[in-house]
Every structure is written in structure tokens, then in C-alpha cells.
């Protein structure tokens, strides 16, 4: 519960058109793209850094939890207000402030939707590479909070490579600028720490992004295989040959069947594995790459290759992949999606292991993966009305993450820890590692105002004793 006087004060800060607190409002902001729900106490829509700062000063003074939120499309519970409090919704701070192609920079407010930025850059011949599947809804602020990935990351890299500077409002309302418009200022990489910190260190109010010229050309192809082993081996061979495609996405048979039920992308439903491959670069040399990849696929017994001949065909090929997660809802709305990542050459073994785990726990698992960088997305389906199935599905997910760690990988390639993978943190990190992360949290947000209760497993509550050193 939040005192009416606080609501009054917040209303004075943002104006009554920018604050919501009725039951239906709180319900609307209790969820994200996961299945969990927790009620906030109030939602505010600031329009400026000054307003954000004023909100934080108030929240800090009263020790009210604050959850920064963009479009709430994250897949880890990152924007669920676990301890209630204020949802700080940045969707109305959505201006593109500057695009400077000569400097290769774009400056945006955090509420700018990723795809809207792309559409603004495209006529100038530029793009911002990270392209999460949520890009048509997700905001740049949200992308930064989760260090979003996407298929293009294989060739171009992830969000942390493309965010050069961030204006951050800290828990006590202080406004700081981390990183820079220019490169190499000697300082601690606070912007690197902030990216992927899942709304726990502060709230971004301005982003300085790195943009690059679009590749001259791209070619998209679909390779269809009769065995999953051949599919993942083809991935290994392509990367092993030194080719760095723009993207290689892998879908298994069950995933294709699910997609075709909803999206009608024209994917085959009787093939064990599918690769969606896109290469990008200079036009004259692209054909050779396409040939090389085709040869490799054929060597791995691909039964069919479809090469897109137009941008419409390209969009059609991508349509199914981009609708994969949502299609799963057609047959099973509450699914668990894992985000475990393994070194790429472990992909065949990892997929095989996922199949074994599915049988062991008797759950249906459909697979899509950013195969080029070993980022799996097994989607585990279960009957929401059956607690036993839910439990089995959860256990299957945990087992999959453990398997990823065992293969030298990580529990999260791009979705973040949030609520969903908190327990798994203990399997991946030593107490000393988590203690170091907590130190960073303590430095930024000593009173745990921002997004409390996320990321760190509860047992690690007792950190290493703080050593207060010599006075500064």
C-alpha cells in the first residue's frame, strides 16, 4: 500500500495525466511476458530526466521500491514489481533526439521502440544491429536493461557493444552520465556494468548509441534437414569454415509444426531440423558465401535449400522465426523458455541432452536456437491446470541450465536472470562472484530501491563482511 500523500506528491511531479493507481491500472502493470504477477502500488509516466530525478528522490526518501519498465516484453520477470512500489514507465520518453551518421551515433530517450529506431535509420542507410525478436514492441531502455541479443548478434555483437553512453538517474535522484559520445575516456566502465543490470542499478533516461552503415546486401536461405544432428553439424561446419553469417537460426520439427499452426510461414512440418541463415556484406562476394554455405548444407545431407530472391521472400522466411515464441501460446500459453547458451560446437550435444531431459520429465519441448552462438531456446510446455506438470517442466528447465553450465556455457544468453533464473545463479557462480555483484549493487543502490528481489538468490543474502577501509 502506498500513502495518498505519496500519490499526491507524485502527481505534483508528473501531472495527473501521467499517473495511474486504480485497481485496473495496477493489474495492468503486474505482469510482463512471463506468467507471474505481482501488484505495484502506482504507475508513473515521467516525461523528462528532471521528473525521473524528482520521483527517485521521493522514492529514496520514503524507501519505496521502484521498477523501471519499458514495454514489459522481457522473458525473465524483470519488470514484475515483486515488492510492490512504483512502476516507473518510460514509454512516454520516446523521442529520437539526434541521429549523426558522420559520427556514427544516435541519441535517444529510453522509450524509443527498437524497430522505430531502425525505421528512422534505414532511409539514411544505417542500422542499429541488436534486433531482439521483441524489437517491434521493446524499448531501447528495456534492451539496455537486459543487454538484448537477437539473431544479428552473431555477426555484429550484442547491445553492450552498441551503447556508448548512458544518462542514468540513481536511486537517490542523482543524475550521472556514464560512458561517452566519444571513445576511450579513461574511467571505470560503469556503462558496461549498467548494461544488462536489469533495472537494479538505476534508470536510464538517455542513451548514446553506436550505429553503423547497413550491409550492402544480404541473402537469406532456409536449409531443411532430416536429422537434427545434421542440422547442428552444418552450423558447426559453417562457422568452422570461417564464415560469419548475419544470423543462423535453428528450429526443430516440433517448433516448425507449432509455428505453422499459427503463422503459416511455409516451413516444412516433417523435417527434423531447419536452419534459417542470413549472410550480409558486400554484394559481389555474397554469392560466393551463399554457394559455400549451400555446399556445406548439402554435405550435411540437407534435403532442400530455399534461397530468398526478394525482400518479400526474405520477410516471409523470417516471419515464422519471429513468431516462434508467440506461436507456442497457441497450443500451450504458459510455457517455460530457457535461455541457456553453450559453446557453439556443443550445440549438437546440448540439443540431444534437451531431448533426453524432455523424455526424463515427460514434457514436450520445442526448440529454437540462435545456433551460430550456441544460444538455445528450448520451450517447455505443460498443462497450466496440472501442478505436477508445471513442477516437472520447471525441473526440466533447471536441468537444462545445469547441463549448459556443465558444457562450459551460461544460464542466460540474452533474456536475463530476473526472477526466473535466480536459483540457477548459484549453480553458475561462486559465492565470491555473487558477492562481487552485490558490491556493485550496493555502490549504485545501497538502499535497494531499484527492482528489489531480483537476480541474486536469497541465500546469498549474507554477503562477505563489508570491510570499511581507510577514510577517503
Amino acid at each position, binding site marked *: 500500500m502506498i500513502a495518498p500523500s505519496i500519490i499526491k506528491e507524485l502527481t505534483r511531479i508528473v501531472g495527473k495525466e501521467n499517473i*495511474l493507481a486504480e*485497481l*485496473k*491500472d495496477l*493489474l*495492468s*502493470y503486474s*505482469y*510482463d*511476458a*512471463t*506468467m507471474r504477477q505481482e501488484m505495484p502500488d502506482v504507475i508513473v*509516466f515521467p516525461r523528462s530526466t528532471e521528473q525521473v530525478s524528482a520521483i527517485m528522490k521521493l522514492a529514496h526518501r520514503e524507501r519505496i521500491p521502484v521498477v523501471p519498465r519499458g*514495454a*514489459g*516484453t522481457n522473458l525473465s520477470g524483470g519488470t514484475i514489481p515483486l515488492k510492490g512500489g512504483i512502476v516507473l*514507465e518510460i*514509454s*512516454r520518453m*520516446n523521442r529520437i533526439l539526434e541521429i549523426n551518421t558522420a559520427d556514427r551515433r544516435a541519441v535517444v530517450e529510453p*522509450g524509443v*521502440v527498437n*524497430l522505430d529506431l531502425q*525505421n528512422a535509420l534505414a532511409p539514411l542507410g544505417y542500422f542499429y544491429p541488436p534486433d531482439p525478436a*521483441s524489437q*517491434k*514492441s*521493446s524499448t531501447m531502455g528495456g534492451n539496455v536493461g537486459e543487454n538484448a541479443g537477437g539473431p544479428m548478434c552473431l555477426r555484429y555483437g550484442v547491445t553492450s557493444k552498441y551503447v556508448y553512453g548512458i544518462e542514468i538517474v540513481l536511486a537517490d535522484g542523482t543524475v550521472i552520465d556514464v560512458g561517452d559520445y566519444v571513445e576511450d575516456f579513461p574511467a571505470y566502465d560503469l556503462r558496461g556494468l549498467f548494461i544488462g543490470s536489469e533495472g537494479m542499478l538505476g534508470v536510464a533516461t538517455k542513451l548514446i548509441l553506436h550505429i553503423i552503415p547497413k550491409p550492402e546486401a544480404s541473402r537469406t536461405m532456409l536449409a531443411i534437414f532430416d536429422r537434427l544432428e545434421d542440422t547442428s553439424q552444418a552450423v558447426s561446419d559453417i562457422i568452422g569454415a570461417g564464415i560469419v553469417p548475419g544470423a543462423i537460426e535453428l528450429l526443430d520439427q516440433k517448433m516448425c509444426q507449432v*509455428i505453422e499452426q*499459427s*503463422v503459416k510461414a511455409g516451413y516444412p512440418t516433417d523435417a527434423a531440423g531447419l536452419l534459417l541463415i542470413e549472410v550480409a556484406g558486400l554484394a559481389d562476394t555474397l554469392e560466393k558465401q551463399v554457394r559455400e554455405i549451400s555446399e556445406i548444407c548439402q554435405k550435411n545431407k540437407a534435403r532442400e535449400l530455399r534461397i530468398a530472391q526478394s525482400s518479400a521472400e526474405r520477410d516471409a522466411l523470417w516471419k515464422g522465426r519471429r*513468431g*516462434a*515464441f*508467440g*506461436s*507456442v*501460446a*497457441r497450443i500451450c*500459453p*504458459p*510455457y517455460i523458455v530457457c535461455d541457456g547458451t553453450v559453446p557453439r560446437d556443443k550445440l549438437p550435444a546440448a540439443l540431444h541432452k534437451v531431448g533426453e531431459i524432455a523424455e526424463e520429465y515427460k514434457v514436450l519441448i520445442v526448440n529454437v536456437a540462435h545456433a551460430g552462438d550456441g544460444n538455445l531456446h528450448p520451450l517447455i510446455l505443460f498443462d*497450466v491446470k496440472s501442478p505436477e506438470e508445471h513442477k516437472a517442466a520447471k525441473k526440466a528447465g533447471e536441468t537444462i541450465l545445469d547441463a549448459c553450465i556443465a558444457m562450459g556455457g551460461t544460464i542466460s544468453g540474452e533474456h536475463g536472470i530476473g526472477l526466473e533464473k535466480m536459483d540457477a545463479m548459484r549453480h553458475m557462480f561462486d559465492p565470491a562472484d555473487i558477492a562481487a555483484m552485490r558490491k556493485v549493487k550496493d555502490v549504485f543502490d545501497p538502499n535497494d530501491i531499484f527492482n528489489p528481489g531480483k537476480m541474486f538468490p536469497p541465500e546469498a543474502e549474507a554477503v562477505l563482511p563489508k570491510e570499511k577501509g581507510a577514510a577517503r
Partner: protein
Amino acid sequence: MSTVVEELEQTLQLCNKCGLCLAGCPTYKVTGIEWASARGRVALLRSALLDKKLGLDDLNEQIFNCLTCNGCTEHCPPAVPTGEIIFRVRQELLRQKGQPWTQRLLFQKLLPNPEMLHRASRLLRLADVTGLRNLARKTGLTRLVGDAGKAEAMVPKVPASEGLDAIKHLVKNIDKPKHRVAYFVGCYAPNFAPERGAATIRVLNKNQVEVAVPDFVCCGLPAAGYGDMESAKDLARKNIETASKMKVDAIVTPCASCSSYLKDYAKLLADDPQWSEKAKEFAGKVRDISEFLVEIGLNAEMGELKRKVTFHDPCHLSHYQKIKDQPRTILKSIPGVEFVEMAEADMCCGAAGSYAFKNYALSQKVLERKMGNVARTGADTLVSSCPACIMQLACGVSQQKLPVTVLEIVELLDEAYRNARGND
């Protein structure tokens, strides 16, 4: 009788909150509020109907400020039919709260009776001609009825018109017709824009199509939009009966909302054993004007029009009927026309029938976004294919003082045909 909960339970649970619908939801885009998105409305309806956390009428605002444009469903991989869900819960709210007398008057007395509707429109014309309407605005009388008062300003001056009869008089036999169609005139043209009715007939004639104008009544969409399914069904049966007495190749209309709803008659009367077959047959004959002209092969003997043209896709044309290419094919085939595609061309304009009468501010916000997109094309002509859209867009253009003419596609075609050499 199944309850609304039983009917909607499974559908509501199709949503897995991925949030992709936010990309296609105009009310979300202009407010940034979660419950103004498809995902948000579905989630709140779940909270009300399945989780019983609040009552359905606590959500009156969210249920009625949905544009039902279906822009969301296009982005939704499991294709949650949010528009249909909204229609169903409006029906439920109507059942719970009863129907206001104004709606009863409109849906049960006026819309089924074009003659009476025409007379009502003459009353409004009288108010125009005598200056009463202006007076009501100036004295702030219109402001007393809230949003309806504000929205009233968007309805243009009522022209002189003899209603459906005037349009019927324009029907003539043509030499060697290749097709024969029934022209579904709708409620708007006979009362507010008879010239458009004339243009439609001329364009069809130019394409060797003989036109009949039977006594159709309102298609029923306005009633359905307010949850009055019984009135909608009555109107549907009337129209199907009227059509069954004719032998035509197609039932053609230039109003996207009408063509969309007429095509839905099969679904509307699916549970009525006496009418389901006839409804199916009827629906199968319905064509939007662009759809029809491209299907039969558009007569290319047009004169030149030097215009820079952009097209706004009516929701009922693009999202409901998936008709997007045909209007563009037509526009691009007019000599002299430079066609430029606007951003978010298929995003709702905010008209949504009588939406502005209850949600004026939101309608304006959506319109403002549309006008920004129009302005950025540099076009001098904005074309669409639905009277509600046209009215809304014309209003927006006037508000923003854009140097843009707003036209129905049939009007532009009509102009092109009349410009051809050796024509009357």
C-alpha cells in the same frame, strides 16, 4: 445458453503476454498505457471474467476505447481475436446494463428504415441551414453532451439530398454489360454524400458493370459495435432477404466497414438454421469496390490526373478483409498520379465508426499521429475507402491546415474517367 465466461475462457488464455501486439495497437502507441493495448485489455478481461478480481463494468472504459481495428491480431502469433473478444464483452455489458434509448432508437428504428434515417438526416440539415447547429456550438450547448458534442463538429454540413431514391434515379442500363451488381449504398452516402453514390455508379458503368440499387438497410456494424447483436442480426436477415430476390454477380460497396461486416454475415448467422446457408451465399457475393474492380480487370481508359497521392488503409479493408494491394494497384494505374506510401498506412485513423462520440480525446490523438504520417509524405491527395475514415481524415487535414484533398477512391477514379478524352 453459454455464458460469456464459458465462451471466452479458452480464447482469453491464448494470450501469453509476448507483447508483440503493442506494435500494432494505435491506442497504445498514442498513450503508452498498457491497458490501452490488446495485451492489456485481454489481461484485464481475464482478471475480470476468469480471476474475478474486478467486475466487467469496471472495465467499461477499456472495453469501449478499443478501436476494434484488429491491428493487434496481425502481430499476434496465436492470433488472439481481441476485436471479437471486445465485441462479445460489449454484448455482455449491454445485457447486464440494458440499452440506452438513443441506441434503441438508432439500431431498432432508424437503421432498419432508410426512409426514416433520411428524414432524421433532414432534421440535421435543417439545423445546419437555419444556423441552429452553429448556434448550438457557439453557445456551448454541444459541450454539454461531452465527447459527443465535440465529435459532432466532425460531422460535415449536411447536403441537400433525396436519400436512396436520388441514387436509384442514377441507375441506367448500359450497353453490353459484362457484369451486373447490386450496389450496397450504406447509410452515409444517401444522406451525407449523394455525389459519392453517383461517382460509384459512374465508375462501375465505366467498367461495363450494370448497377442495381436495391432497398438494402444498414449493414449492422454500428449495432454490433455497441453489443446489440440482436439488432445486427435483424438487419442482416433483411439484407439477405433483399439480395435473395435479385440475380447479380456481386454485391459491391465502396464502404470498407460495410463490405467487411456483410462478409461476416455467415459467421453472424451461423447458429441460425433458417438463415445460415443463405448468409453464406450472401457473404460469398460481397465485394469491396477496389477488390471488385481489380478482379474484373480495371478499365484503363483514364485521363491524366496530376496528383501526388497517398492511401490510408481503412481497418475494415486491410486488417479485416486483408485487402491492401488492390487500392494501390488502382491508384498506381491512374496516369499522372505519383503514388507515395505513407508510414503506418494501415494504422487506424481513429474514426472507428462513432468512436469519437465516446472517446473524443483518444480519437484525436490517433488522428494526430495519422496526420503526421500524411504530412511527411508531401502528398496533395489523401485517398481512402470508408466514409468514416474520410470524415475523420478530412477533419484532421482541416485541423492541421494541411494542403491536402481527401477523397474516396471512387471519387478519384471518377475524376480520372471524366478527364479521359472524348468523354461526357
